[in-house]
């Protein structure tokens, strides 16, 4: 079943991109109308999409997928972006995109399995140590609403939010499990801290009111493009169903935070993290979609949260289709809402900034710990060195992926050491 899902997902995503209906890379979305409306050649489009996506597949998608043996959605959908833009226009192109996309999906799944199997058979099996990469982030993620608060409303409110979230976390540790009506209810400290932080951020954000109609203007200027998305609703709903089902099977994750939580088996916390992240993506997806007429194959990323909460793949698929449909049907209403609460729109941007800053730190620390568990001493040296070298060399690896990538490299080096009988 998983195999079929991966093939269908890859195939459909590539077709959606080929027809200019949906692309995953937010950077590629604004360029699609340039080609659809004839201002940019297919060749330029394919070249741009390759340049934009390839680095992210290699330097972001794959390292995370390897470190947890769960596929990060970026690995597959950035690839199908490239495949879909590369395949020619018309019926023949659509079929080509579908077939190559499906093969790519299968290739990724078996490729990941293959590489993990090789790692397991190596003289030094570093897979369990590699798991330490995710240790800091599965707790530290709860801090991001406080950081977003600080970005948006100043350092004092940020500190207040962090203290409140920390306090709630410790209260949850102390009082869990709760006895409610004779039933034992265990409370997750990180989940509670995250909810507290998000609530405080959203309360601050909704207090910011405005009478400007920015996004609303966008809807009226680009009404044809909004109509185009609505016309494509059925295909997008199917895509949502496939992604949600794969997430419920736990072979796919929407972002590095929930990926690491899923690896630990903390599905509800992963769902909460995905939900909070979704809030961060509403403004980005809504504004780029309205302005371009091109949607995202995963929508506003809420399907990941729903799939993780539901856990049953079939029900998750239904929920995925329903959620994507609702997002699209209410796209213009949502625009109005973003205008009425400009603080929420800004909060979305700040949530994304805060999450990536947090991931940079947490994954660097995680990467150092993992590498040092694999080869004590050398691990710290290598990861710290590689991080700074990456900075000096204009970041060929995305900053937050340096930790996981370096830890994988140290694992491979450990095996080379064994082959050469170098002791460590």
């Amino acid at each position, binding site marked *: 079943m998983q195999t079929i899902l991966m093939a269908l997902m890859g195939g459909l995503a590539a077709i959606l991109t080929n027809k200019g209906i949906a692309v995953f890379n937010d*950077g590629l979305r604004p360029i699609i109308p*340039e080609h659809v409306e004839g201002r940019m050649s297919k060749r330029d489009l394919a070249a741009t999409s390759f340049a934009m996506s390839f680095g992210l597949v290699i330097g972001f998608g794959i390292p995370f997928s390897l470190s947890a043996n769960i596929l990060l959605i970026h690995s597959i959908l950035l690839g199908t972006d490239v495949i879909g833009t590369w395949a020619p226009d018309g019926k023949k192109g659509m079929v080509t995109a579908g077939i190559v996309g499906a093969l790519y999906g299968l290739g990724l799944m078996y490729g990941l399995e293959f590489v993990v199997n090789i790692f397991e058979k190596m003289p030094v099996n570093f897979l369990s140590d590699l798991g330490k990469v995710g240790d800091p982030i599965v707790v530290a993620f709860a801090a991001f609403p406080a950081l977003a608060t600080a970005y948006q409303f100043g350092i004092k409110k940020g500190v207040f939010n962090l203290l409140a979230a920390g306090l709630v976390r410790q209260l949850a540790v102390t009082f869990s499990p709760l006895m409610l009506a004779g039933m034992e209810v265990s409370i997750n400290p990180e989940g509670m801290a995250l909810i507290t932080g998000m609530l405080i951020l959203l309360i601050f954000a909704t207090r910011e009111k405005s009478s400007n109609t920015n996004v609303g203007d966008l809807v009226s200027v680009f009404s044809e493009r909004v109509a185009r998305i609505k016309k494509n609703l059925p295909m997008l709903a199917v895509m949502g169903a496939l992604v949600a089902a794969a997430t419920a099977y736990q072979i796919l994750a929407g972002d590095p935070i929930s990926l690491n939580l899923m690896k630990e088996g903390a599905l509800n916390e992963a769902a909460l993290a995905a939900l909070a992240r979704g809030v961060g993506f509403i403004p980005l997806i809504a504004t780029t979609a309205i302005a371009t007429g091109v949607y995202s194959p995963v929508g506003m990323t809420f399907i990941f949260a729903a799939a993780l909460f539901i856990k049953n793949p079939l029900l998750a698929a239904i929920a995925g289709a329903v959620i994507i449909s609702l997002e699209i049907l209410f796209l213009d209403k949502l625009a109005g809402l973003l205008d009425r609460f400009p603080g929420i729109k800004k909060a979305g941007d700040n949530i994304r900034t805060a999450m*990536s800053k947090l991931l940079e730190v947490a994954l660097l620390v995680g990467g150092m710990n993992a590498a040092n568990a694999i080869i004590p001493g050398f691990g710290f040296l290598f990861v710290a060195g590689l991080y700074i070298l990456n900075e000096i060399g204009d970041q060929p690896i995305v*900053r937050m992926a340096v930790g996981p990538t370096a830890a994988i490299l140290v694992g491979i080096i450990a095996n080379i050491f064994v082959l050469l009988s170098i002791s460590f």
Partner: protein
Amino acid sequence: MKIVVGGQVDRQEIANKIKEIAGEKVEVEIMDDIQAATAIKTGNADYYFGACHTGGGGALGMAMAILTNAKCATVSMPGRGPKAEKIKEEVKNGKVAFGFTADHIDKTVTLLLKNILN
């Protein structure tokens, strides 16, 4: 000369960097990405800088929709830092809206201003 900072992440950091390099020579204003792109369109500002994680989506999405591809350029992408030659060429070709990734703010803003101010 006026530069508006749109995009979706690290706006303050970009604005600070512009001020740090150009000082009094330019006026900098941080705006919502839609407002910022509109400011260029209506002639209220001369250049648009924006960052996000891909260099194109949040950074340049609204600018691209409002100003079209002819006025916009993505000058850094994940894993591909800004290139002095490319930036020089884009500025010469009349591009006014520039998107880049948040990882490369320092270097990109420095290169862009060097070319724009000349």
